[in-house]
């Protein structure tokens, strides 16, 4: 019985991690209708920034995490202003080609600068190991992930639903022309949102180095997971991707534990079943565009 809870706990932690990594993609794809396959590259950037700060410059891990967010967000805003915005009105194929090209460039440049071997971030010893909670093994690091990601999710939901910026963003997405007619600076809103999504990815990349491993191929290896989260969750809100991440995280971990021979297929089976049942994802709105 206690094993069940350990599995559930690991699954939730894995799901939360997927959510932080992928929710930026849900925002760009769902809210801004832009297919950004280079999303993983921003996550990787965050991971490497954190690794360099902690391992080479001796920063404490918790001080480096916000920096991972900020640096990815900065690179995001620069690229958005210089490159991405020209492609908002282009076809999805153009966007895919552009962003996949960007991904390959990021892989090659990180390989060149940092080398191709996998790197680790030195963690404070307080985060290492497991402790027993009524017989359930709880990993300290995974617990931290759940806490950080849980807080982020609540904050995101509040920002989108309750703040003025949230309503501006939703307005800009629903009808950019009307929104700019009402005096909303649509490009600025988009740039900010894009940067924020990139920042979240960067934070996710830094958090995931310990569990998923960090190497220059990160953006390519995990692109498929991000896309699964967004397609299963539907891209109209962040609740969808959040639930989808949890479902996939728990499904993946439990599947690998209970049926290790089928392990890697479980996540894809869940995806196919859900998409047959609801082609627009769990919370997708039925083809409004």
């Amino acid at each position, binding site marked *: 019985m206690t094993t069940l809870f350990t599995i559930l706990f690991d699954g939730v932690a894995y799901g939360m991690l997927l959510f932080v990594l992928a929710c930026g993609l849900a925002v760009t794809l769902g809210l801004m209708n832009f297919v950004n396959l280079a999303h993983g590259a921003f996550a990787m950037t965050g991971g490497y920034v954190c690794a360099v700060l902690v391992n080479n410059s001796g920063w404490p891990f918790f001080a480096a995490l916000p920096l991972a967010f900020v640096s990815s967000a900065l690179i995001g805003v620069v690229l958005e202003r210089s490159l991405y915005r020209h492609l908002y009105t282009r076809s999805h194929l153009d966007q895919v080609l552009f962003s996949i090209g960007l991904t390959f460039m990021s892989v090659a440049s990180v390989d060149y600068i940092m080398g191709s071997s996998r790197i680790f971030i030195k963690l404070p010893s307080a985060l290492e190991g497991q402790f027993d909670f009524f017989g359930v093994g709880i990993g300290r690091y995974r617990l931290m992930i759940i806490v950080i990601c849980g807080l982020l999710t609540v904050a995101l939901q509040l920002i989108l639903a309750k703040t003025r910026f949230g309503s501006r963003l939703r307005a800009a997405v629903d009808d950019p022309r009307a929104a700019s007619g009402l005096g909303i600076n649509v490009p600025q809103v988009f740039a900010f949102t894009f940067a924020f999504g990139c920042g979240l990815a960067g934070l996710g990349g830094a958090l995931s180095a310990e569990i*998923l491993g960090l190497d220059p191929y990160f953006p390519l290896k995990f692109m498929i997971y991000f896309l699964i989260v967004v397609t299963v969750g539907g891209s109209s809100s962040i609740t969808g991707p959040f639930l989808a991440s949890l479902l996939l995280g728990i499904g993946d971990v439990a599947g690998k*534990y209970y049926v290790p021979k089928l*392990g890697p297929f479980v996540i894809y089976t869940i995806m196919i079943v859900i998409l047959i049942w609801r082609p627009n994802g769990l919370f997708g709105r039925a083809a409004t565009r």
Partner: protein
Amino acid sequence: MSIRSQMLLAAGAVAGVLALAPASAQDAVKIGLILPMTGGQASTGKQIDNAVKLYMQQNGDTVAGRKIEIILKDDAAVPDNTKRLAQELIVNDKVNFIAGFGVTPAALAAAPLATQGKIPQIVMAAGTSIITERSPYIVRTSFTLAQSSTIIGDWAAKNGIKKVATLTSDYAPGNDALNFFRQNFTAGGGEIVEEVKVPLANPDFAPFLQRMKDSKPDAVFVFVPAGQGGNFMKQYAERGLDKSGIKVIGPGDVMDDDLLNGMGDAALGTVTAHLYSTAHPSAANKEFVAAYKKAFNSRPGFMAVGGYDGIRLIYEALKKTGGKTDGDALIEAMKGMKWESPRGPISIDPETRDIVQNIYIRKVEKVDGELYNVEFATFEAVKDSGKTKK
């Protein structure tokens, strides 16, 4: 001219050049070195390239009156690239040897070309048993997974390990490692309580490790590609498997000297069987390690040794043939050759053209603040037991 006849002509030209290639023995002896210099296997390529350079620095670039010229090509461990590059090297550059080969599929892709061109193919890294059976022109200076996996199986059965759970990556070398381990371990009276194959691109070991923990074995036998070893060890410690007294054993690839220090103290106490450790206590090795560290500012791992011995084999074979580069004569010269490598005494099996070497049982210990695989038992002159043709 129609496209069809153009293609025929081109094919004819290629065949003609292939037939001529070995005969064009003039000035320099050319060695086509095909290695993964980019991509996930790049550390293998870099180590071998470094070792080859080091050997040539130490021993000069002239053998039997002929200059040695290395042509380095990057195949990124993609077999299609390997094949194309090998063909270009043989046809256009008229190389006398092809060497390197970071992964098994790459070595296999080039094998038919070695046969066709009668060019010796020196495998310096890839470790699946079948490779040397694919062409009579293949000689290997690295290792086979059967060598280390059978030995660790024997050792575990004799040293109080009764129940083992296995965790191996689901691809050819992983399956080789698992099968040879299982064969020798169960023959020695051991029992395998849990067998898990993890996907090659596996993001998170957590569920598999939890399964290992719950099956309460004496030890976990693990084989994952070199880069993933660090992740495995970290999560192994995170889950407290080290504290519940479960040992890690395996072939030595997981504890590659190249990456060992990055794994942290979690790796301490891991027992593996392998052909080479940077800490191998011989004069030849101390000299090799010192020279390598001085030149490249990093530790040589077993891949570097495979490359170092590979280029040495080429030098010695050329000395024996008096600088002649006829493929058959070179292969004959290499068969049965013996020498003292940094890893210990090694030889080339005249029947299989595969390497015969000592396999050492080592334990990860801290020496002068760094992690090393410290050898404590030796199995001498181990042949590859994984050949299909007996």
